[in-house]
Every structure is written in C-alpha cells, then in structure tokens.
C-alpha cells in the first residue's frame, strides 16, 4: 500500500462523515430555501427569492442573538479567565484535580434540568424574595434578557475555562520569573507576558462559546419565557410550529452566512493581536 492510498483510507471515515452529515444536509437546506411552503406546511419545490425577501420579519431574533451572544461570550470570558488563571498558576497540584473535576461536574446533568433549576432560582420565590428580605423590592429577574444572560454564562462557563486553563498551564513559568527579575511589577508581567501568551486559549474559548451561542434556543426558551427570542427559537418555531420549511431554511442559511462573516472578522482581529493562526485550535 502506498503512502497515498493509506492517507486516503485514513481520511475516508472523516470524509464520509463530513459529506453525509454536513455537505449533503446543508445543500438540502440551501435548495429548500428557494422553495415554497406546501399548503398544509412542509416544502413544495419552486424557485423564488420570496423567503429571503421576507427575512426582515425575523430581524428582532437576529438582533437579540447578535447582542446576547457576544455579550454572553465576553461575560463568560471575564469570569472564566481568573478561574483558569487560578487553576493553572496558583493552585497546588493536590487541589488542582479536585477543582478541575468540580468545573466539569455540572456537565453530568443535562442542561435542560439545570436550566429548570434556574427558573426557580430566578423566579419570584428565589433570588427576588431574598432581595426583598434585605429591603430591595420589586426586582424582576425571570423572563428577561438578564435571566437569559445568566443562563448562558452559567451553561457555557466550563467551555471557556478549559481552553484558557490548558493554555496557561503550558505557560513557561521561567518567563514570569525573568520578568520579575528584570524589575517588572506583577501587574506589568501579567499585561506584557501572561495575557499575550494566553491569547490562543482566549480565542479558542471565545470561538467555542460564541458559535454555540449563535445556535442556542433552549436557554432563551426556558429562562426567557418565550419573550427573549433567538434565531434558534425562530428556527424551532418555523419547523415545528408553522411548518414553513423554505422560510426556515432561508433563516438557517442566513445564520450560517452571518456566522461565517463574524468568525472571519474575528480571526482577522485575533491575528492582528499577534497570535499565530495555527495556535487557534478551532480553525
């Protein structure tokens, strides 16, 4: 067997998967997006741009997603970075494993159940009742964009912690010592050494969280009470309620395009920040 054949054979499973699970469905979605809704719902073949012309009707959903996904990603980053730094740099090896496991533990239960728990925490008898007890009255948390944001940060935090942790863990501690020997204050060492060197981890974490958030529908559905609507919710509705497959396909295609554009801009930015493209493991 030549090297070439062997390479092809090894790539075959992934290639087949890629073709059957990604290329073919995306092509079907693209074809459907030019069709028409059948009378009782579903798809009827046609060639029309009507579905795309109708996209402004879902503007609010795109707007909500494009606001809450970056804000959620940023908030998760701000919370995750200190955690990852603490785990990678400060904690003794004895505690490290235990703390790392604690970060993963929430994944042992489905996000559905954990979001339900948040319904009770954020509902009138949860945190607002506690606030009332200390004198802050009339706080409404559940079914607001804020409650959705909390759910998002909570649900996606581990995905942000791990890439940054792995990155900081590999950080050569001698560099920090050298910086300190040369007279830099800890704050300066962090800004000039640690932070720039952890950009690949940050980039990976942000990308992971942001892409998943763009397709999120469960957290807004549960913690938004049907009032905070993401593109994901629009898609669920179009396929499962109004059964308008062509319009749903057009919305899906648009979401993919928006994501591609955002990710491309994002990658450019990261590159300009000095990280090498190869370091960002998702690309």
């Amino acid at each position, binding site marked *: 067997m030549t090297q070439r054949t062997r390479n092809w054979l090894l790539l075959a499973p992934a290639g087949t998967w890629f073709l059957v699970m990604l290329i073919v469905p995306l092509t079907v979605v693209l074809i459907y997006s030019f069709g028409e809704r059948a009378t*009782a719902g579903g798809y009827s073949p046609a060639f029309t741009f009507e579905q795309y012309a109708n996209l402004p009707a879902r503007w609010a959903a795109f707007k909500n997603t494009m606001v809450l996904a970056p804000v959620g990603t940023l908030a998760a980053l701000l919370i995750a970075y200190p955690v990852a730094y603490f785990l990678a740099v400060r904690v003794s090896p004895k505690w490290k494993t235990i703390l790392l496991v604690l970060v993963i533990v929430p994944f042992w239960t489905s996000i559905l159940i954990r979001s339900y728990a948040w319904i009770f925490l954020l509902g009138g*008898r949860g945190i607002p009742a506690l606030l009332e007890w200390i004198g802050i009255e009339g706080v409404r948390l559940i079914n607001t964009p804020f409650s959705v944001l909390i759910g998002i940060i909570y649900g996606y935090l581990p995905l942000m912690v791990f890439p940054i942790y792995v990155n900081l863990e590999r950080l050569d501690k001698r560099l920090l010592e050298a910086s300190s020997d040369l007279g830099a204050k800890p704050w300066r060492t962090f800004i000039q050494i640690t932070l720039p060197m952890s950009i690949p981890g940050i980039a990976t974490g942000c990308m992971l969280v942001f892409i998943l958030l763009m397709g999120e529908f469960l957290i807004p559905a549960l913690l938004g009470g049907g009032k905070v609507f993401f593109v994901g919710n629009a898609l669920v509705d179009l396929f499962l*309620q109004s*059964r308008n497959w062509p319009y749903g396909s057009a919305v899906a295609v648009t979401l993919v395009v928006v994501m591609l554009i955002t990710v491309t801009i994002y990658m450019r930015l990261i590159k300009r920040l000095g990280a090498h493209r190869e370091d960002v493991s998702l690309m």
Partner: protein
Amino acid sequence: MTNNNDYISKKKFMEELYRYKRGSVTRRHFLNVTGLGMATAVMGAAVPGLRPQPAFAGDIGDRVVLATWPNYHDPANFEAFTAATGAHVQVNVFGSNEEMLAKLQAGGSGWDVFVPTNYTITTYVGEDLIEPLDTAMLPNYDAASYNPRFAEAGSVDGKLYAVPKDWGTTGYVVNTAHTGGRKLTSWKDFWDIARNEFSGRGMVHDYQLTTIGNALKYFGYSFNSIDEKELADAEKLLLDVKPHLFAISSDYQPALRNGDAWMSMAWTGDGKQLNSDMPEMEYILGVEGGEIWSDYYAIPKGAPHRDAAYALINFLLDPEVNSREVLAHGYPTADARTNALLPESLLNDPILYPAEDLLSALEFGAAATLTDPNRAELMARFKSA
C-alpha cells in the same frame, strides 16, 4: 406446562430469573415456570379493564409509544396496562397540534398512538398521515355511548379515524387575591387587565389557535377568523400587550402556583387542578365566546407497534379505566358509561360543565386555522417581536 401452579423454591425462582435476565429463556417461559404469569392473570381478571380481550390476545410486543399532552393521564393506568400486557407505555408530551403535525409530516415519529384535537383530523386524513380504525380491535368502543357533539370529528367521509378521549374549553385562570374584588368575565377584561393592573403578571399560550383566537374575541370576531383585516387587528392587540406579559408559554401551572403570574389562558383541566389546590384561582370563560374542543385517540400511518396501539386505546376506553383518567386530569368525557361511574360532585362541577349560556357562545376550532400561513406567521411575528 402442566405444573405451573406448583410451588417453586426461592433458589429455583432466582435461577429462572437469572436465565430470563440473561435472555436464555423467553418472558413467557419465565412467567409460566415461576407462576407469576398465573398470578398476573388472576389479578388482571379481578380488574374489569384488565380482563383478557381479543385485542390483547397474542404478544403485542414490549412497548407502545404515546404522543399526548401535559398532565393528561393517570400514570397508574399505564402501569396496569404494562402489568396486563407486558407492553411498556412510552409517553411523549407536546405543547401544540402544530408540533404534532410537524413531527408526523417530517416522518419517522415512531408513535403508535397520538391525541389529536377535533379540528386537525381532516388535515391528517388529507395528508394521509392517519390510519382508519378497525372497531373489531376496539371492543370497548361503543359509538352509541358518546355525546355526538364530541365524537363526530373522529369520522371523516363516514370512515372512523379517531375515538373520543375527553373534551374541554379554553378560558383563563385568574388569581382573585389580586383583582381587588373586581369580577372578570370577558376576553376584553383579560387583555385590558393584562396590559394595565396585571402588567408583568399575565400569560398566554405558546399556541396560535388559542392566543390569536382569544385576541380575535376582544374585537368580537370569530375565534377561527382567517380574514386578513381581522387578523391585523388581533396582531395589533397582541403586540401592544406583549411587553406586559410575564411569559408566552403553554406550561403555565408552575408560574401561577408560585405566584410569579396572576393570570393565564388555561384549559379546563388545568383550571380544575389549580382551583382544587388553590381556591382563589378562578376559571373564567369569556362571555364573547372562545374555544370548545374535543381530543381523540388515533393511530398514525406506519405505527411501529400497531397491535399494542389498539390494545392501549381499547384499554383506555374501558369505562373503569377512563373514570380514573378523568379523576386524574379533570377534563369531562363524552362517554355516558364512564360518567355513570364518576362522583356526582364532578358531574356538577361548573369548571368542567359550564353554564349553557357560556357554553353556547363557544366555537370548535376550524381546520383552516391549522394550515393557514397567515395565522402561523402572525404568531411567529408576535413571539419574535
């Protein structure tokens, strides 16, 4: 096996159990040699609903998949069914008829029995998604015992496709602790208080038929209207009320119970369940009218466990079993045989059986609303606004 009534030692029993668990003997062999089969049969015979009947004859498989609505069955009945037939009931819960239709249209739902509402059945027949029922397989179905008003939608062009489960109304539940003694009576009251005194406390269904239908009632239009001008009025009202709503959800009991929401569109059974637990929860039918509906049992085309589907429907139609269902879900049934077994207090309950003048204003949902693209898109615009 002639000695299946004989004593079986603990040791032998465990051996047989292990053989069965390993799969080296069949369930039938296991039940036979251990005597459990006989025990089940004796127990089964003591309960009328479990009496062996033609539909149960033979092996119906180990499961049956039921697509139904929330809070809609007595779980003990499913356990009894499993004990009698060996088939485990797997329950899928849905929030709207649209969702059920979407799943069946997409194909491969894997359902054996589902629970469509009156106005959807003609669409299922038209789309060839539903199976005509063979009444020979449903000995417990007695057409004459049903009030025809709640049974007639089950037949399309003289062919029986669905048998009645129960019926009900769509009104709203209000927590009277917050109304300050004011008596709400209409859909106009509902929508007006939702955007004023009850701002942030009201809920509507995540379901186009009832949410749009009851917004149409505000203007006195038909619950089923698909007229574009009337729908535009309803949309204006919905968009105006939306910022004041607590949530858009068909799962309204938790929020009403914990006090987050004070008012919600509601179906009979939820009204009954809430009112029984919290007397301040009042169930109101709008004087302008609104929806009356009837739910049915039906079998989708290509049901993977067809025999089990018939067995389950037949089991649930048994008056004895059905009366326990009614006690659990709190919706009235159209079956006179079942009603004969229910307590008088339930049959006179004003939530289950509203006064005739309120009842006569109600409309059955119309088939056109299910497939009308404008209503579907209106609901989506309302939700994404």
